[in-house]
């Protein structure tokens, strides 16, 4: 029923279940934070879980500021930690 898929996080391969959100997949893999803040450089991860707090922002396939709690993993996604405003 639930099919396995995979993606990379900061280059390292990771497993996920199809349809799972990026946030869920990361937490399942033991990753609790994937962003650092603009001013204090502090780690952040999932907070509200439903797309309202924007704490879970992450860079997906080069696109910064994607909400990890709402976005489902797509096979082969290149998911990366983001620092500050996420723009490089």
């Amino acid at each position, binding site marked *: 029923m639930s099919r396995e898929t995979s993606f990379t996080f900061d280059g390292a391969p990771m497993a996920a279940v199809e349809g799972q959100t990026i946030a869920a997949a990361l937490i399942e893999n033991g990753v609790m934070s994937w962003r650092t803040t*603009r001013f204090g450089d502090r780690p952040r991860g999932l907070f509200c879980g439903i797309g309202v707090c924007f704490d879970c922002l992450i860079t997906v396939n080069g696109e910064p*500021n994607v909400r990890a709690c709402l976005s489902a993993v797509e096979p082969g996604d290149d998911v990366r930690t983001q620092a*500050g*405003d996420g*723009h*490089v």
Partner: protein
Amino acid sequence: MNADVIVIGAGIVGACCAHYCAQAGLSVIVVDRGSVAGGTTGAGEGNILVSDKEPGPELDLALLSRELWAQMAGELGDSFELDAKGGLVVATRAATLEHLHRFAAEQAEAGVIAEPVTAKGLRDHEPHIARDLLGGVFYPQDMQVQPMLAAARLLQHARSTGRVTVLPETEVLEIERDGSGAVTGVRTPTERISAPHVVNAAGTWGGVVAGLARVDLPILPRRGFILVTEPLPPMIRHKVYAADYVANVASDNAGLETSAVIEGTHSGTVLIGSSRERVGFDKTLDWEVIRQEAQQAVAIFPFLADVQLMRTYGGFRPYCPDHLPVIGPDSRAPGFLHACGHEGAGIGLAAATGLLIAQAIAGTNLAMDIAPFAPNRFEGAHVA
């Protein structure tokens, strides 16, 4: 309660009036019906510009004011994000470029530093600017402040002199006058405050406040919306705007006018301003304005196409029929002074306005001629 001066309005203009009055040794009570900086000062941008002003009394006021802003920033330490970043005015069409260069030459004669920039030179100033612009003018004297903080810090500083009291949440209901017509103080819901001088620094509501002393002042709202992007790394160095903006500022057109004015802020967001419409006090967001401002911003900085708009806000600029502010004593009501109607330049012009008001009250020499800003200059003005 009593003081030498009552200032009505704790926006940037009221704050500057209090600052300079205190410096002149006067005791001041500042009243505002809401929060400090809760009016238009908290609803606009913080540009202190000389670049958009044609030679004349407003430019003279602006030139004086920018000197004073730099001085105040020095006195108060770096507490309101003053940034002497300079302005870059660009042209998209040959006709505008020509007009811009002529305009700049005239400004230069009036004391403005204006440096023509070639199309290629634009990129030295702004590496991310569109490639198809024709050229522009760089104005190193343009500056920026965080206007709400500036008003609040100035009032905080003024209070620390012991001569200034600030009363937020205190609405003036009436300005009282004696048998000779001179003002004697104001009435609020809870008390009477007396003073021989009352300053109308009520911005867009300056006409209403003048009415509280039964004098006419034609001040009307001119709506503007500002777009705020997601936070970015510093990508835009200066305040950048299209030359058409200058024409809009002075326009008498009641309809919608937009011309992109783009700048970064300390917090990383980019502000895109600002439309000008005369629609009364209607706050409804107009998505046509948003679309036009977005379009113009992307035309000047193409990278903005992928940048997200996070929020918008807007306010109502206080304007007079001749687009000049009202500054100085009102001969129709002795002791009553006006410091309002600065339209889209109230932040920039506030410092000089405050100084001139303090000088007028203290009876010292005026830093410049204020006749062009006289309160009774409008036709049909009369004591009701």
